């Protein structure tokens, strides 16, 4: 009886392991389509409800986390923290949302998007991947709102990522901190161009691998999307979208490996409201 149980257990385990490998082999590299889309469509309303219901709890933990961080900082930050606490009492949540929406509106009117054919669709982040290996978020706008695969996504602070897949009422966004992400960008003012890649595991660090240039890059300089267009091909991002600020740009590193480090403007860990730039000129 016991042996039979052990055999059954081993058989189920073997079946599950083979099943996992089969799924990996079949779905890696191409979309697994129907199953994932179906499950996402079913769970999307549940995720939206869970997101709304858990927002106060998330804000509370965020508040504790920020307080913990601020303890180690200088007196200026401590003074700022007092202000933040007062704001929290006075309904910080509403103020933050308002500020985010204002930023988004400013970005709509900014030079990067004013001339382009992009139509921004505002959405809220409803889910986030649990591992740092896949930096993806789910937003509550999808193909029903005009969102398509490869649409750029921005927050009030700057570039966030690219739409990887869409369903009726939701879309998955691959963040610029995901290992599969690559964004063509340029440093302003020198105009040094390159490709931004993430430093997997560190969401506050991006690496700009740039084309050989005689112009030196310095800390504090801004990096924006380059939005190139050549031989019928075009970048997925409109030009001039802010990405981040150069943090470390040692001459040795620039000469040896042709790269500089930057910090993204967008706070990837606390994304809430974002805009999907639909209907770009590339289509």
């Amino acid at each position, binding site marked *: 009886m016991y042996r039979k149980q052990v055999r059954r257990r081993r058989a189920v385990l073997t079946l599950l392991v083979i099943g996992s490998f089969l*799924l990996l082999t079949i*779905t890696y590299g191409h979309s697994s389509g129907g*199953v*994932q889309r179906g*499950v996402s469509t079913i769970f999307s309303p549940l995720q939206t409800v869970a997101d709304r219901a858990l927002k106060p709890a998330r804000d509370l933990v965020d508040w504790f986390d920020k307080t913990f961080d601020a303890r180690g900082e200088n007196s200026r930050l401590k003074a700022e923290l007092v202000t933040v606490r007062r704001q929290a009492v006075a309904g910080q949540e509403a103020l933050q949302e308002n500020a985010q929406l204002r930023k988004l509106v400013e970005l709509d009117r900014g030079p990067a998007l004013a001339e382009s054919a992009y139509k921004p669709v505002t959405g809220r982040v409803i889910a986030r991947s649990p591992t740092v*290996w896949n930096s993806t978020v789910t937003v509550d706008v999808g193909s029903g709102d005009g969102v398509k695969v490869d649409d750029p996504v921005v927050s009030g602070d700057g570039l966030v990522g690219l739409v990887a897949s869409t369903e009726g009422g939701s879309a998955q966004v691959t963040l610029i901190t995901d290992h599969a992400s*690559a964004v063509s960008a340029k440093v302003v003012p020198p105009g040094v161009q390159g490709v931004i890649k993430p*430093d997997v*595991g560190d969401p506050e660090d991006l690496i700009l691998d740039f084309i050989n240039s005689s112009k030196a890059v310095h800390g504090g300089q801004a990096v924006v999307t380059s939005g190139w267009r050549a031989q019928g091909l075009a970048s997925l991002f409109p030009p001039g979208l802010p990405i981040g600020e150069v943090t470390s740009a040692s001459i040795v590193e620039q000469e040896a490996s042709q790269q500089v480090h930057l910090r993204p403007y967008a706070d990837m860990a606390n994304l809430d409201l974002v805009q999907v730039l639909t209907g770009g000129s590339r289509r």
Partner: protein
Amino acid sequence: MIVTPKIFARLVAIVILAVLLQLSFFSRVEFLHTSADVLPAVVVSLGLLGGSLTGAVAGFSVGFLVDCLLVAPLGGSSLVLLGAGYLAGLFRERFDIHSALVPPLVCMGLTLFAELGFAAVQVMLGVDAPVSVLIVRDMLLKSIYAFFLAWPIYFGLRRVLRPALVEESRVARRRQPTVLGRT
């Protein structure tokens, strides 16, 4: 674990609730720049309560659901989490859990195992960017968080699944001691 239709429904609800909570809450709040991953802890707790088969099936289901919702390559998370669930179940079948410290410690160890597993699967599938050493800190912090979160998770799940659990201690107390040589 005796899996009746009612208990099966509870297990399905636990899996769905855990995944929704992870994606909508735990992944989106950070403490010391790292978010907690409760899914390995839930799978390990189910393995510790229900045995290796329950652990493996729960791990596979949780991984499958997560990959579906995140539109990630299917199978990666399933493979790692079914391993964690199976090992937890095997631990329960081989050893008695005498101390309340054991489940959190097992959760911590197997969460680290799962994080290493996720890294191994990702390396197997290919990583197109440099990897920061901060990822080690992330893994260690996630396992420490799992230790603390395992208390409410394990004891909460034990309460929910109580009707299905075979309590070894009560069985052992009732059984007459075996005396060698008696006819």
